[in-house]
């Protein structure tokens, strides 16, 4: 009795419709199939990519749920993270070549991620204060569409600004850790990927803990449920908005740094992460944070299935086909949209 009750709770947390359950079961089936075709090692890669998409999508869902902003500039936070990660890690690596130091060698990639996260947070605060907050002060009319376009403009500026400042060439590293791949249960896992997955899991867990158990996290949830009510009980709305936005950009930047060995830093590197994060959000339903975590892995599986069975050149076409099905069958997403507020108005 107890396990089934627990399972029901999990579904409730996701807000799963029958479609959601179906898609999850189908994804598990897909995972087994991919595991048989490509070996279990590819499933590990799916897990890593999925963790990263989840990290990005959670940020999108958070910003949409709390502030009703459909951020289009999420990929550019990823881009900034990748650049910062590169410029933090690269000097340290050069230094290590001359002065071997095991502790620093272990810490350097983590420091790169930390630096990127901080830079992402600063970026978020700046964007929110300089662009979003002035718009909010002026008008809330057509808020969702306006902020979508506003962030699209920001993304446009940042991509082209990065081209001017950084140049159009790739800045990447072959790997973070120069170790042999670890073998667990007969699956070879590169240390970099393990660390990236660990970072994703850690950050998402920290976010969930923060949202559930801290005063500020509760305040964020209160704002997402009812802005006016939150204001009445003395929550500083401006602070919560800035914090939420900064959290999202920081998470995206952390993902950018953690995946530097897969995605080299260049001006338009954010396109794919942004696209897949949006795919996750459309798939699971707007503003559904827990759904976004599961959705990240579903999308990564779908990507792997596309590569394995259809061909990598169709990677841009398959998500749209899936989205068309979703829009026809369950337009509010497989786990259901949980957004209140302006979303209902326009």
């Amino acid at each position, binding site marked *: 009795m107890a396990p089934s009750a627990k399972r029901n709770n999990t579904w409730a947390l996701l807000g799963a419709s029958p479609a959601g359950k179906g898609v999850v079961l189908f994804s598990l089936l897909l995972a087994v199939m991919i595991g048989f075709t490509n070996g279990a090692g590819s499933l590990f890669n799916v897990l890593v990519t999925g963790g990263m998409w989840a990290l990005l999508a959670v940020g999108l869902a958070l910003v949409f749920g709390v502030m009703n902003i459909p951020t289009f500039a999420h990929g550019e936070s990823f881009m900034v993270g990748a650049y910062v990660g590169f410029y933090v890690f690269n000097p340290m690596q050069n230094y290590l070549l001359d002065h071997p130091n095991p502790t620093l060698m272990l810490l350097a990639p983590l420091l790169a991620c930390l630096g990127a996260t901080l830079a992402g947070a600063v970026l978020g605060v700046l964007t929110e204060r300089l662009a979003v907050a002035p718009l909010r002060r002026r008008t809330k009319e057509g808020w969702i569409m306006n902020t979508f*376009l506003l962030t*699209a403009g920001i993304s*446009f*500026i940042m991509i082209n600004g990065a081209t001017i400042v950084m140049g159009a060439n790739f800045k990447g590293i072959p790997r973070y850790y120069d170790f042999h791949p670890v073998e667990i249960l007969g699956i070879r896992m590169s240390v970099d990927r393990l660390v990236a997955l660990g970072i994703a899991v850690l950050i998402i867990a920290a976010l969930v803990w923060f949202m559930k158990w801290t005063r500020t996290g509760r305040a964020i949830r209160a704002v997402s449920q009812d802005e006016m009510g939150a204001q009445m009980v003395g929550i500083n709305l401006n602070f919560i908005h800035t914090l939420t936005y900064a959290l999202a950009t920081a998470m995206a930047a952390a993902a950018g740094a953690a995946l530097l060995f897969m995605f080299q830093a260049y001006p338009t590197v954010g396109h794919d992460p942004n696209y897949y994060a949006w795919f996750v959000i*459309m798939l699971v339903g707007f503003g559904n944070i827990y759904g976004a975590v599961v959705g990240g892995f579903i999308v990564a599986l779908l990507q792997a299935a596309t590569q394995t069975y259809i061909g990598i050149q169709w990677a841009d076409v398959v998500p*749209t086909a899936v989205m068309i099905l979703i829009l026809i069958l369950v337009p509010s997403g497989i786990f259901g949209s949980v957004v209140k507020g302006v979303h209902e108005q326009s």
Partner: protein
Amino acid sequence: MSNGDKGQGVITRSLGQVGFTPLGVALFVLLVLCPFIPPFNNEYIVRWVIVGAYFAAQAVAFDFTAGFINVVPFGFAAIVGTGAYTSAIFANQSLGLAFHPGLSPWVGIWIGALVAGLMGFGLGILTLRLRGIFAAVMSWFVGIALMGLARNLTWLTRGPSGMAPVTFFKSTSNIPYLYVILAMLLVIYVSLNLMTKSHIGLAFRAMGQNYDAACASGINPTRYRVLNFTVSSMFAGWLGGFYAHYLGSLTPDSIMDTSKTIEILAIAYIGGRGSLWGGIVVAFPMVFLMELIRSHSGMPGLQFVIYGVLLILVMIYYPLGIAGVFQWMKKRILPAFAR
């Protein structure tokens, strides 16, 4: 620019019906005559006017959707590209590709418009019963998918290396193209203006301003939105056909990328959303300025940064755009002179 006031002449009023003021007509005539007026009669200027008119016409079609029903077609560039590719494919004579009907580009451009219109219709049916953001994001997704198709269907489009569509005219002069694009701009502007001034336009505006109130007063939102999307996409595809047969080269990235949509978006919004003519007024100087910046600044992409900054400033601080400035001048400054 054109609410026919009392006491104005019949001509002005009937011009107003199609969205022109005497000033607008004068400026348009200037564009038509520019290849014959001495300082402007060089190929460089003519080329600039062509590109300006191409952007202006796109901005009008874009504004028809974004400014009126408040749904932003984020895959607009891909729809333009669909028209361009369709037209190029139907006009293709090269035996190197599997499909080579070799129709005249003058026929192809219409097929392109038709296919783009159908695309808009399908996209509209799919997304427009939902809230606007679904349409915007889905349109972006479809845009990326269309670009993926253009890249991968190599037997049809030659993939990323691009097609070389036949041009409209054999001569290398730009002047015939100028008249084609100006005519297209005129047709698009006038027909969309007539549409927005009819009861259909009223319904569009009502939905854009307050969706729920519009539904409550008996407007079927999906039908009007799909109509709007279809018309806008059709004109977008039509313009794409012009692009293909003017430049004579076509790659997925040069026409279908999302950044192209953002350029049009910036022009339309700086011009003033919901005005239609604002985009035209902004497009010509913007294209010229941006071309200057691109060729003289030595910083690739600087012009796009400026586009983006202007877009954001207009969105936050002056959502009415250039059209708003004109309205303000008309209200405040002209009466002072009339006294």
